[in-house]
């Protein structure tokens, strides 16, 4: 079943000054449960693609359909609420609210969703356990390492029970051990919860973990490969 489908997606920045064609007719379909890496050199359009799929930015033309909803047609609070209930986000940095603890950061999206207290608490414990941070629940982001912060961000992305998680270069600021560790956790959640992940990266070791690798170049899909020998070590 298709979770995401982009049709002829194009994005031109600064159309009236010096136009930048960040995306040129991208057609991409993502099935439920996929673990997809978007790769490509810097400036190839990875961030732009993820932002548009996530409803954070508008395409210049083309469409994005998420489980039957054409999200470019949503506006204002409808769009914000759509993101809240359907999409999990992990950014490269500054993911977490600095004044909230790890536990509170994960709980935050569920509070926005107005889920009952019991459910929230159970899910926070389960998710922090899943990302291996049961002992850091009451730490603020500034008291956590970069890798730990990204793991909290992954836990938060899943807390809202989204249809998929978008992660734009989630390992870019991490050392290689933390990066592999984060990928292991994402892969585990992908397999155990059948959560769909789409992440961008240009780290070869991260790319190796992906099931499907979509390569962008100059805003076009250059290659789209399904890898068989994915190494999983947990």
């Amino acid at each position, binding site marked *: 079943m298709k979770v995401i489908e982009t049709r002829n997606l194009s994005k031109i*920045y*600064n159309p009236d000054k010096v136009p930048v064609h960040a995306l040129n007719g991208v057609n991409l379909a993502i099935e439920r449960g996929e673990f997809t890496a978007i790769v490509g050199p810097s400036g190839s359009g990875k961030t732009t693609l993820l*932002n548009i799929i*996530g409803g*954070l*930015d508008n395409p210049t033309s083309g469409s994005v359909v998420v489980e039957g909803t054409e999200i470019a047609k949503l506006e204002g*609070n409808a769009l*914000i*609420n759509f*993101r*809240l*209930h359907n999409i999990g*986000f992990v*950014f490269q940095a*500054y*993911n977490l*609210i*600095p*004044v*909230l603890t790890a536990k509170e950061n994960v709980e*935050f*999206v569920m*509070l*926005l*969703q107005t889920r009952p207290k019991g459910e929230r608490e159970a899910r926070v414990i389960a998710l922090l356990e899943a990302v291996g941070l049961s002992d850091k629940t009451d730490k603020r982001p500034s008291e956590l390492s970069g890798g730990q912060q990204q793991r909290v961000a992954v836990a*938060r992305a899943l807390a*809202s029970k989204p249809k998929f998680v978008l992660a734009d270069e989630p390992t870019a600021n991490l050392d290689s051990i933390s990066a592999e560790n984060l990928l292991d956790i994402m892969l585990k959640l992908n397999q155990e919860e059948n959560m769909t992940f789409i992440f961008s990266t240009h780290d070869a070791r991260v790319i190796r973990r992906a099931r499907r690798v979509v390569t962008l170049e100059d805003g076009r899909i250059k290659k789209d490969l399904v890898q068989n020998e994915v190494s999983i070590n947990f």
Partner: protein
Amino acid sequence: MIGLLAWRNLWRNRRRTFITVASIMFAVVFANVMDALLSGINQQMTDSMVGIYSGHFQVQQQDFWEDKSLHNTFIPPKEAAGLLDTLPEVKGYTKRLESVALASAENLTRGVLVVGIEPDNEKRITGLEEKVQAGSYFHGNPGDAIIGKGLAEYLDIQPGDTLVMIGEGYHGASAAGKYHICGTIRMGSPDLDNNLVFLTLADAQFFFAAYGRVTSMPVFLKDNTIQKEVAQEISGVLPEGLITQPWQKMMPMATQSLGLIDAMRIIVLALLYLLISFSIFGTLIMMANERLLEFRVLLAIGMQKTKMGAMVLLESVSLAILGAALGFLASYPVVTYLNEYPITFKGRAAQGWESFGIDPVMPTIVDFSMFAMHSAVILVISALLSVYALNKIRNLEVVPAKK
């Protein structure tokens, strides 16, 4: 949730929170002290000026102010006198009969204003005795007169000399009399000093053949703030044809210069508010801009802008409430202290004030409604300034356009 976030955000940069609260607090204190002081000066000047002569209001015949003739005199009504004696706000009242006459000594003559007064009341209420320059005040000798210093110089006479006056009395009776000058007086206003002749009320009534009649009953109050209420109460018992004339009508020049002080007070306060606004605004700009990244993440993960706005508003309004409340509390001791130990002008400044007949001691006015007003104004300013941050949030986009 929003409350918790706002609370934590306030603790996030303690020093800035502290500085902001402190600056709001000092602003409130400063505004309150400033206002209390300037209002105090205003009141002091008012009370001094009206205390010298006019009173806070006068009971007069309704046409007297337009036509100061002896036709417009009246017999002091007992009801009014009775009420004035009992009202605690009334410091005192007196009676006067004034009209014009010609005064001459040897071969010099001049038109004068003859004012019949009650010596003991005037001494007690207006301190008239202290203004006597040479000779002495009234000591109960019939036929005594005290004349303005300038008039004495013009007529070239001094205490001990004789003054002859002629004029027209009540109902056209002719008035004439010979008086013994017991003193000269300096009222401060050249106009008065050049023209004034004080007699006792009884002598003046006899001179003008206006037996038992007066032109005015000046009423002196404890302070000016209660002028309207007391005047109204007195008006209630006055017989037809008598009115209470407020000092503002009788001394238009003084009213104007007091208005000037009031305008100054408002300008100073406005400048102060402007200064505070900049300080609060600076904090808000910093707070909003350094958190733009965070706001974007919040927006991305699904926090509605109205909730973010509520959070920011709660933060800035809490700062303002805290600052304003502390300012309110801190103002009280400062203003009370300056009320009990007033700012006192010394040296030339003091002489300046005194030459206008104003006591150079400037107590503040302790007025809680004033405190509340300034605290509220600063609160409102802070809330209005948060519009900046709110607008930032309103226009927030997760992916900003690159310049």
